[in-house]
């Protein structure tokens, strides 16, 4: 019962030390100066000065993704705190353990619209697992330990602790050992898998003729990759993963189907469509996976394992719902599962689909063009499929998911649920810190996404982190352009990014090596050059402008609507020109008179016909 007497700020750092925090990402401001004063004297925590709080939040996410530990981000009150909204939402959607610490104005002026005041606990209520406004310094140590406990327990997620500046400065006397023992009667996270349900699951698996394992981020979070491999091997069940499940099952394994869903492989989607038993492990039947829910795996019984009870029956009713940790489920299940060798017919059928509908990745030998898919495959090949990869959001993300060929868990770091452009670069930086600053991290990005958090290049530059940015530059917001091409009569509305900085010079401005690659025959040499260069590198790959991601199941639709590959008929090919040029718009602005307005209304063929079913998801 040894108590210590200290300031709130120092108590906070002591709590972080006890939670095993070695790195925090932060940005100072008025309301956190007391914390920064303690950091000035602190020798056990590395503080990384980011260039924007959003970047700091994504770095903490990347750190957490790569290590499985809790990421920590520190920001000041008001705008510092509101800049964390996007990373917090991202972490909430993707179940990433994150502790955000924000400064707040003095307790006596809270609610009085003080300078740099924002009601950040109110703002972040729906995007955190829980949050606290610490009004009394005596509560601070307990709350910090509770925050870490909640962030990492059960289904991981973000929490936020808002600390008024006077609370940081106030003196507190507390027992650090006692307060570290978190007791929360109102927070339950240690769900034990139901033994009876596990036996039922084993019976279902023994009887299934066409089973498929559908593996999500929950399996990764539970470190269940070895048990998963054992189950798949023992029974011979093919495995498809979600975007966040990638890497949890090695994609060079014969039973691997790659990713499923909207841009999943055709054979994964066919297998799921035809299966009679779908074993969902830590996956949540996201709309990008299921498309139209009623047509998803229509003949399948479902075993659904998830640590979050609210995922049960949320989208798809499960015949065997099991609440618990995926790894403890698998360990229990493996006691009852017998080896089987009668699934050859099923796997042969899948083999035929694999042969008939492989992922296509032109290498440019026919057309001499630089294709994004080829660049990704070359990065994978030259790094022996071993590199940790982060992505941003859009076409490049889907191509990376399809073509990289992940081998190990926590290898693929991406923004799935929220789809946050700007995530990739800071996440790569955070991952590089988490991995000790020596392991190369490849950030596969696009020209749109990269510009959203590009300022964090400075951090990579200062710490000489081995972050290699493969910028797949098609001078378009490619995914939106693809949808406009496919579903909106090629109305390329505001997706043209031709007016862009010189990315090589931009990199150099930050003290980062910049490379450019324009021809397929130069790809290998450029990647090798980047790998041989110590520290960060940005490679501007000038890829084909109007290539679409296939296969594609359009939003909210079924497998019958899947576009498996690029149409063979050249007439269906997208025209390789853009009819929107930057700067042309002002001349098109005309004053619409009443007469013209009426005419336009009559001629507008974009209005849905009466009775037409409009897919709002488009």
């Amino acid at each position, binding site marked *: 019962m040894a108590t210590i007497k200290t300031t709130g700020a120092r108590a906070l750092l002591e709590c972080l030390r006890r939670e095993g925090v070695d790195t925090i990402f932060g940005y100072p401001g008025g309301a956190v100066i007391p914390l920064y004063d303690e950091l000035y004297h602190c020798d056990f925590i590395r503080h990384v000065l980011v260039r924007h709080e959003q970047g700091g939040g994504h770095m903490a996410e990347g750190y957490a993704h790569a290590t499985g530990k809790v990421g920590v981000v520190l920001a000041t009150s008001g705008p510092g705190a509101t800049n964390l909204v996007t990373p917090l939402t991202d972490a909430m959607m993707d179940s990433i353990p994150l502790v955000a610490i924000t400064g707040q104005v003095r307790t006596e002026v809270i609610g009085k619209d003080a300078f740099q005041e924002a009601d950040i606990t109110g703002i972040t209520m729906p995007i955190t697992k*829980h949050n606290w406004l610490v009004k009394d310094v005596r509560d601070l140590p307990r709350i910090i330990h509770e925050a870490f406990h909640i962030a990492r327990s059960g289904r991981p997620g973000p929490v936020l602790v808002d600390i008024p500046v006077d609370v940081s400065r106030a003196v507190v006397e507390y027992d650090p050992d006692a307060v570290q023992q978190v007791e929360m009667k109102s*927070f339950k996270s240690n769900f034990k898998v139901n033994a009876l349900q596990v036996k039922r699951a084993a019976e279902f698996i023994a009887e299934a003729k066409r089973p498929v394992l559908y593996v999500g981020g929950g399996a990764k979070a539970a470190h269940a990759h070895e048990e998963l491999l054992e189950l798949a091997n023992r029974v011979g069940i093919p495995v498809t993963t979600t975007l966040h499940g990638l890497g949890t099952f090695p994609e060079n394994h014969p039973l691997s189907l790659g990713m499923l869903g909207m841009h999943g492989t055709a054979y994964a989607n066919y297998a799921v469509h035809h299966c009679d038993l779908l074993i969902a492990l830590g996956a949540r039947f996201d709309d990008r996976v299921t498309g139209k829910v009623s047509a998803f795996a229509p003949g399948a019984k479902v075993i659904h394992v998830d640590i979050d009870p*609210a995922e049960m*029956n949320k989208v798809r009713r499960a015949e065997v719902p099991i609440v618990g940790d995926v790894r403890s489920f698998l360990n229990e299940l493996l006691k009852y599962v017998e080896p089987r060798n009668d699934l050859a017919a099923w796997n042969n059928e899948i083999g035929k689909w694999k042969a008939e509908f492989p992922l296509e990745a032109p290498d440019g030998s026919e057309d001499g063009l630089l294709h994004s898919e080829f660049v990704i495959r070359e990065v994978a090949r030259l790094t022996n499929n071993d590199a940790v990869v982060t992505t941003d959001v859009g076409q490049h993300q889907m191509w990376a998911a399809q073509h990289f060929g992940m081998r190990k868990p926590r290898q693929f770091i991406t923004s799935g649920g929220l789809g946050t452009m700007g995530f990739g670069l800071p996440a790569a930086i955070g991952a590089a810190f988490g991995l000790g600053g020596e392991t190369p991290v490849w950030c596969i990005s696009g020209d749109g996404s990269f510009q959203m958090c590009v300022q964090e290049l400075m951090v990579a530059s200062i710490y000489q982190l081995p972050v290699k940015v493969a910028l797949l530059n098609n001078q378009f917001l490619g995914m939106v352009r693809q949808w406009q091409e496919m579903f909106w009569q090629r109305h390329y509305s505001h997706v043209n990014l031709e007016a862009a900085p010189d990315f090589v010079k931009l990199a150099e401005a930050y003290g980062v090596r910049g490379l450019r690659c324009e021809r397929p025959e130069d790809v290998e040499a450029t990647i090798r050059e980047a790998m041989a260069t110590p520290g960060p590198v940005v490679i501007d790959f000038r890829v084909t402008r109007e290539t679409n991601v296939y296969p594609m199941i359009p939003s909210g639709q079924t497998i019958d609507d899947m576009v498996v590959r690029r149409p063979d008929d050249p007439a269906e090919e997208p025209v390789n020109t853009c009819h929107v040029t930057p700067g042309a718009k002002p001349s098109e602005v005309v004053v619409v008179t009443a007469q013209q307005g009426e005419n336009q209304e009559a001629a507008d063929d974009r209005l849905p016909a009466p009775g037409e079913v409009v897919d709002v998801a488009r």
Partner: protein
Amino acid sequence: MASATAPSSGGATSFAGGLRGVQEQHTITVLVNNEPGVLARVSGLFARRGYNIESLTVSITEDPLVSRMTIVVAGDADVLEQITKQLHKLVDVLKVYDYLDTPLLARELALVKVNAEAGQRLELMQLIDIFRGRVIDVSDRTYVIEVTGGSDKIDAFEKQMEQFGVRELVRTGRIAMMRGPRTV
């Protein structure tokens, strides 16, 4: 619909687990930590997931650290299952209980300010008596009546008062408790 003597949350159509696709009114008791912001967390959850609250009451309990919310909400079995599970996930929520198929005592309180003209007072007093209400304020033209009971009874009383002219009406939300020795 709940009534004063034979209340049920779901009516005759409900069975264990409720009906999918059938809209039912549910009474849910939620025990929460007595902390600032808890009401916002609970009501915010309902708002952002598109659930409609019909009534919500918050009160103290026998334990000063615990508050009790009684929420009346309509939805089918799937929606209610999600609501209950999402409520459980809130860190400040200690217990969630849906009274589906549990015999419960449910009460509301209403204050009604009605016109009480000289010639109508006798009739008014008789009605108040039937509903076991009480007059708690008298002016030369109006009475304020206090009446408690299930929502059906209060609805009926409200209707009876219309003939006199209701000047103002206020009702608490529903509060509920299990019959018998069991507790939430």
